[in-house]
């Protein structure tokens, strides 16, 4: 990293020491877990029937909630970044709330909304639609916690892209929907992509809200984190092996989104 003759970075050396400790705090537990992996049994452990069912369910539900995040999150980010209306700051605060809320609290809130006795759940139940204990409940829980990631990423991209191009397009006679489709969205596509990837990762790791709200049944609601939590009771090796799978996916996802952002940088600076 340090090149001779490079410009003065102005960071005192003790800052590097503390930064190193901070880095270790994150890396060391992962190394410790890696050391606990039962390598000869690794493949059988992660390909057992229940593991594969959990992994498949996790991938399917996370994909579904990422789509839902895009469908709902893009308009939200647009409204927050470009719109001007009373209560805008309040809306942003509420949309970001799941970022800091303990997931179990989200689960309880969802339960009282979509549960059998809930605000929307009761009329839905009367109409013959049941959400509790279904895969839909898992997707709802994941979308609830993942939506802010997409909105934050996209809103940031929209703000740094500015609206000059859009204004030009509009003066040339493009209608708002055309501007959105042909100018705005292509401009912020990298931001949207990294937001979607982060939402996917957050959905994949969702645990608390799912456990509280959706239940736990193999192939229906028992996602990978729930399977790990359960396996830990009897088979620590399986729990560690599955944890490693989630870590690997998380590393890949974060790497992907970080790479995206790096490539994105010059584009942001240009206009």
């Amino acid at each position, binding site marked *: 990293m340090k090149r001779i003759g490079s410009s003065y970075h102005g960071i005192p050396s003790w800052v590097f020491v503390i930064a190193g400790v901070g880095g270790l705090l994150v890396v060391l537990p992962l190394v410790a877990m890696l050391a606990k992996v039962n390598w000869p049994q690794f493949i059988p452990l992660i390909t057992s029937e229940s593991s594969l069912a959990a992994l498949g369910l996790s991938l399917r539900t996370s994909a579904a909630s990422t789509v839902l995040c895009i469908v709902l999150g893009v308009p939200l980010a647009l409204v927050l970044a470009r719109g001007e209306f009373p209560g805008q700051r309040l809306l942003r605060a509420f949309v970001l709330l799941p970022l800091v809320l303990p997931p179990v609290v989200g689960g309880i809130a969802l*339960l009282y909304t979509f*549960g*059998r*006795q809930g605000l929307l759940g009761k009329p839905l139940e009367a109409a013959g639609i049941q959400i*509790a*204990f279904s895969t839909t409940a898992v997707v709802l829980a994941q979308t609830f916690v993942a939506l802010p990631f997409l909105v934050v990423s996209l809103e940031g991209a929209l703000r740094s892209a500015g609206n000059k191009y859009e204004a030009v397009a509009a003066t040339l006679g493009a209608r708002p929907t055309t501007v959105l489709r042909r100018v705005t969205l292509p401009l912020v596509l990298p931001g949207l992509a990294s937001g979607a990837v982060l939402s996917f990762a957050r959905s994949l790791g969702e645990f608390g809200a799912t*456990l*509280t709200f*959706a*239940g*736990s*049944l*193999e192939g229906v*609601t*028992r996602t990978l984190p*729930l399977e790990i*939590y*359960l*396996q*830990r*009771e*009897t*088979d*620590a090796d399986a729990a560690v092996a599955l944890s490693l799978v989630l870590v690997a996916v998380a590393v890949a996802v974060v790497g992907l989104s970080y790479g995206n952002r790096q490539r994105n940088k010059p584009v942001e600076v240009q206009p």
Partner: protein
Amino acid sequence: MSITGHRLRLMALLLAGALSTALAGCAADISTPAAPSAGASSPLSGEITVFAAASLKTTFTQLAQDFEAKNPGTKVNLSFAGSSDLVTQISQGAPADVFASADTKNMTKLADAQLVEGTAVNFATNILEIAVPPGNPASISSFADLAKPGVKVVTCASQVPCGAATEAVEKASGTTLSPVSEESSVTDVLGKVTSQEADAGLVYVTDIKGAGSKVKGIPFPESDKAVNTYPIAAVGTSKKKELAAAFIAMVTGDDGRKILADAGFGTP
């Protein structure tokens, strides 16, 4: 200049904060000294830490209070969690003096790790009961009713003790359940019933007693096919062997029996 001033003020604030926290810490330390031991009347003193299964929360909280009242100068710290979690914690060096498990399997696990002092004593039993929401919306009256189509029943997963007990009852009664959810703890099962998401759940008698009017219990004869036994033992690494033994004696003695029986536990 103004930036430096800001920074200084911020530093001062931070320092003040750190200091007040440190002082508060000291004050807390000073204000809770070990109560003076009453001399000859109470030879026991000091603190012990008891790791107990989550289902023992109410009873052991009561027992610890009684123990402290009877032995001035002692303090019982309690930590409640799933039995297998507690075994993992003790194996990883958590400072426990007494371990009370919700099943013999987890006590055996701890004994296999050479972490049990002497032999464990069985002090209580627990059986399953059907929990339904107050109105009993699915009109459940027997174990077989749980297998009726359309009944949303929630059980424990077979990996945890209450799930193993559920499986044993299913096998013995020839009834196969198809639960809508298999939870990893009995608390989660109860939660699904109290929130009325489920029509019925299989939990322990003691859970239903503890939940009060939020659920209704329906006993069923097949429950005696799966009786859970609770063992208690001193932890091998404990430095407070005497105090640990005294606490165990209280749990297994008449006082403990009474408190446990009131909460719905059976005698082994």
